């Protein structure tokens, strides 16, 4: 069985960094030395590899990042690195797009690293559905804060747990957007059991959310890594522009 941390390191090099570089060139072409992109990251609170690699590549600056870790022990650890603002809690319980949310004044960001695999989410009931709901809330927040474009990195563990297509649609459609007719997921079966289909669904939802919130997709790419025969670490990277 491969360690998630090792697989995450591969994702950083093979997917996250190339897409962040491309986003940096697209959004801040005139910034030569350092793109100074603002990063929001769901991080593991242990080694902060994604931040140091983005920093090494002159895409973000130490002290300017917004970190979210899953608990207070990790928050103490994260604060010792002086990487920026450190927040903690259960990301799936956070009401992200409300004005009172602690994230609100810290947005918009240029890179959204929504790595749910870093958050010790032990819920096995509708976990991916909840994560997709949060992804949408973050896109809403970016829109509310008038972001013209950003890099979205979305990572999750795909395992034997089924995904309910209608649940995904119902939750998304409850968040209204003018002129939007609802999430069209009819190409998927009501219960999505195969890992390949789950990954296709995650990608499709991201594409549809871009349409819903009036972002164009400048580039989209994805990668999956086998944790074992039943579980995969799936990562999707999208550059959204308006």
């Amino acid at each position, binding site marked *: 069985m491969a360690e998630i941390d090792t697989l995450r390191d591969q994702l950083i090099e093979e997917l996250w960094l190339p897409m962040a570089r491309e986003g940096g060139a697209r959004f801040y072409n005139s910034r030569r030395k350092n793109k100074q992109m603002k990063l929001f990251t769901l991080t593991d609170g242990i080694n902060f590899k994604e931040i140091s690699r983005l920093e090494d590549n002159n895409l973000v600056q130490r002290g300017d990042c917004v970190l979210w870790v899953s608990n*207070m022990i990790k928050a103490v650890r994260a604060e010792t690195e002086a990487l920026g603002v450190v927040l903690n809690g259960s990301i799936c319980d956070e009401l992200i797009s409300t004005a009172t949310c602690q994230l609100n004044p810290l947005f918009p960001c240029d890179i959204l690293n929504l790595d749910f695999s870093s958050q010790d989410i032990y819920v096995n009931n509708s976990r991916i559905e909840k994560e997709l709901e949060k992804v949408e809330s973050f896109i809403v927040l970016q829109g509310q804060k008038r972001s013209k474009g950003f890099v979205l990195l979305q990572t999750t563990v795909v395992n034997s747990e089924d995904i309910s297509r209608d649940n995904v649609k119902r939750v998304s459609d409850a968040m209204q957007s003018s002129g939007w007719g609802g999430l069209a997921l009819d190409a998927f079966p009501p219960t999505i059991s195969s890992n390949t289909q789950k990954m296709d669904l995650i990608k499709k939802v991201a594409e549809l959310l871009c349409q819903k919130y009036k972002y164009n997709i400048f580039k989209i790419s994805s990668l999956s890594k086998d944790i074992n025969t039943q579980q995969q670490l799936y990562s999707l990277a999208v550059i959204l522009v308006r």
Partner: protein
Amino acid sequence: MKTFKAERLPKLTKIMYDSQQRLSKNNWEDTLKANHREIEKLLVMVSIFDTWRNTLERKYGTSARDLIKETFMDSYMSIYFACMSLYKQAHVSLRAELETVLRLVYFSSHPIELKWWKDDKAFFKGKHVWGDNYDYFMHLDDVNNFKGKAGGELFDKVRAMYTTLSKYVHSNFSSFQTTIQGVAPAYKKAEFGKWLSRFKDVQKYVNTVLALGLSEDFKSLGVVNQRKVLKVIGDATYKRALKQSLGLIIRGRV
């Protein structure tokens, strides 16, 4: 000094800096060599405050979040001080943890008093917000139901623990950190053991007070998180009394 250079420190500061660096390293290592498994268990125990915070913040807002964060930090710092062999300070942090939780329960239903307390108004000067002899808690039905099931008064235990911990706050002779053998803090098995036992007791009382004082919130945690809280409480009598007095439906052994 823009860049920190230890060799450029003034004489006494340098002596203190060097000795504290060495003490910190040695005491952490000596403590963990003998107790790393126990410390890991304590860190798992205090992680329960993440669970409480997630629930209480949703209902009571940022004040509950702040009080729970402080509670966590008091418990975390108690472990930190114990690992540094600073047993007196480790006990002081435990009393702070206990006090903060008692306040949290009281303020959860007293928002006006909370504001007075935050504003440092004279109203609470020289007295505990929860009243003499833990009066406030004595009037809570769930606390009284628990008393019947547990066969004893929880707040007698809380009072006894508070009194013990207060000796460290007020520097009673028995709580002195210096000994006849020396002044520098060093790992002492017996002192660590005494602190460890009290630490576990405080977590038991704190989580029981939260479960009873905020019983509706405890019930809303769901079975998985209720089990986690009960595991931290540990004491079989307390767990059974909580399950019976609050009518918890948790199947199997907890």
